[in-house]
């Protein structure tokens, strides 16, 4: 697993890699909080994520909701693996949070 945060000039990019589970939850929360505090555009890449457990789903969901409430621009960077979309679907989430929120214009 891995959570990479290469800052760019005008965007925060959080890249999730490999299997993200409860062991990574505290770190993921911290990274998301930092990104929200910075403001501006937030990018999350799930392209290289193998799987997400429910803690990661909750954190992404909360971050997406909080970002939307702050009027931040949030985007998924790159494609989402099919397995991951299926995983969100199996878990009963309507969609991956960013997709839904950005889709709704939040």
């Amino acid at each position, binding site marked *: 697993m891995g959570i990479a945060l290469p800052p760019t000039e005008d965007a925060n990019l959080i890249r999730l890699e490999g299997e993200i589970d*409860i062991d990574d939850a*505290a*770190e993921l929360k911290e990274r998301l909080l930092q990104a929200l505090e910075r403001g501006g555009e937030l990018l999350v890449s799930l392209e290289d994520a193998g799987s997400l*457990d429910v*803690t990661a*789903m909750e*954190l992404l969901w909360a971050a997406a909701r909080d970002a939307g409430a702050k009027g931040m621009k949030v985007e998924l960077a790159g494609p989402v693996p099919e397995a991951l979309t299926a995983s969100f679907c199996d878990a*009963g989430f309507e969609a991956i949070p960013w997709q839904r929120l950005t889709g709704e214009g939040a």
Partner: protein
Amino acid sequence: MRQTISIDSEQFKQTFREEAREILVDLESALLELSEFGENGELVGKVFRALHTIKGSGAMFGFERLAAFTHDLETAFDLVRAGRLQVNAELIDLTLAAVDQIRGMLEGDATAESPVREEILDKVRKWAGIAVVQEPEEKAEVAKTGKAAEPGLGSEPLREWRIHFVPGPEFLKNGANPLLLLQELKHLGRMSVRACTAGIPSLKEIDPERCYVAWDAVLNTAVSRDAIRDVFIFVEGSCELVIDPAVAEGDALSEAPPDSEKVGETCAGLGAAKEANTDRRTGPADRRVHDHGEMATSLRVPVGKLDQLVNLVGELVTVQARLSELAAQRDDAEVVEVSEEVERLTAALRENSMNIRMIPIRGTFEKFRRLVHDLARDLGKDVELTLEGTETELDKTVIEQLGDPLMHLIRNSMDHGIETREVRASSGKQSPARIHLSARHAGASVLIGISDDGAGIDADAVRERAVDRGLIGRDARLSDAEVNALIFQPGFSTAKQVTDVSGRGVGMDVVRQRVESLRGTVEVSSKAGAGTSVMLRLPLTLAIIDGLLVSVGDARFVLPLANTLECIELTREDIARANGKQVVNLRGKLIPYISLRQHFKISGEPPQIEQIMVVETENGRFGLAVDQVLGNCQSVIKSLGRFYRNVQAVSGATILGNGSVALILDSERMFKEVERATLRGPRGHPVGPAKNLRGNPIPQ
């Protein structure tokens, strides 16, 4: 943080190992009952659920190979459960062998391949007609989800179920994974599911390791409510679960086919309701009762923490005794009141702490079903093990140390006591032979009995062997009990040949040593041709007891309160009337007594009026003469060490409030010791006709 997580992960695995060991005991027991009583739906269900739990939780905690190994066995019992196959001796033996393998995997390397396991699985598959080769993907899925497609799912009528699942706050921290459970549910039929996200707090407030999501699902399936509940079997104690038929009267979904929107509405409503609660698991009382059926009522606590608690309570009891002593010296009403209150609370705390350590003996007894089953097969004997008093509770430490002595006794009984089928048939004895294990409370002790209806002890052979070994003289007069007691001598065996099971004369010696190290006693009675009975008397606890503090001169003694009945006065006139005998009149009945002053050779004159503490033993009542009764005391038992190990009348010592030491008396053993001394001369040889303390002749 990484390190903490890896420790936690190992803790989850350890928890799984502990739980799996307990499940295996139940599984083994159910298999042996099936073997004994034949096809029984309840037992088959029990076996299935045990295998299912081991498989499911094994996969969840990273024991994938163990989960995969259990899968085909579970399938076989599912087929039996569905009435498609009938359980027989072959399946039971294979499953018992598999249980051994699972134990091995739990203790050792669970990832290593084993030809023995493969052989077992091949036989199980052949027996159940399960496809031998699984696709790698399917196998991986089984290991991952802990579930394969239910056999015959399509042929049964479908039913619609609404499932509401709310993981508890510690759910994820305990290593459980709700997504795997949802996947497993999905394998049961057609399912739509909706996550209820209303409970997820803001990112800032979120506890990243807690599950805030709840789920509502509608499942169309042919399986029963129990089968759906089985999916949650190993997380039942840590979640809220509702499984309702969707066709119930007044059900919002009963009129409409399941769809995600409808499910979502229900979910949103529940989620909103939950938001008002700080503890999301605290729903309306009626719902919880309806949901769970069985609430989480137990908590797994490391043994070390319990030991620490009892040690601390022991220290507290000692300090409280000191406080009581000081309060009595100060003669200050307020201090005395506080001291009494502390004493009351300490006693309650002590009782509660000790109760936490008490566990039923069932687990220990049940383990012997397998031992008897295997030994009976190996020895070619028909033996039935019956159990009684399995819910009798004992201190955990006592139970832990009881396993070996009981095993030795049962092995001995199976090997030497129980006759072969042919011998039993020729002597007109019923088959199968019977070994009976029993447990019951008796005052502050627990009596554990092991009896069989075998050949009994050959008293002549025992006597002969004892003479040969120089344990007794050729002309020694021994009671039956004393002859029987010889079998507990080190290295004593009358077996004509050493077998794998017993015959080295080690077991019975170990039994006696282990039982005595627990401050217990062991007695044997036997009747030639009718069987042998061994009775172990063990203390309920090894840590703290309620006692009565008494004094003789400057010495202090503690008598366990549990077998002390009453206190009566002993005057000089009473002594004179007894005509030199140590007996006292208790409401018209004479009972013998022992003077502690004489017994312990304490100098000084006794007071004009002594006190007789009347105690109850298994041989009846008798008295202990002391100078004064000082009052109740909670006594933390301290071991006296090896130097005192042969002092039968003393079971330990305790520290009093003033810092001095009082000996804790074992009245049962003291009585026997005095009785033995009365029967023998100064060199240990019997004198005159043998009589007990009551003056009655002892039958020879």
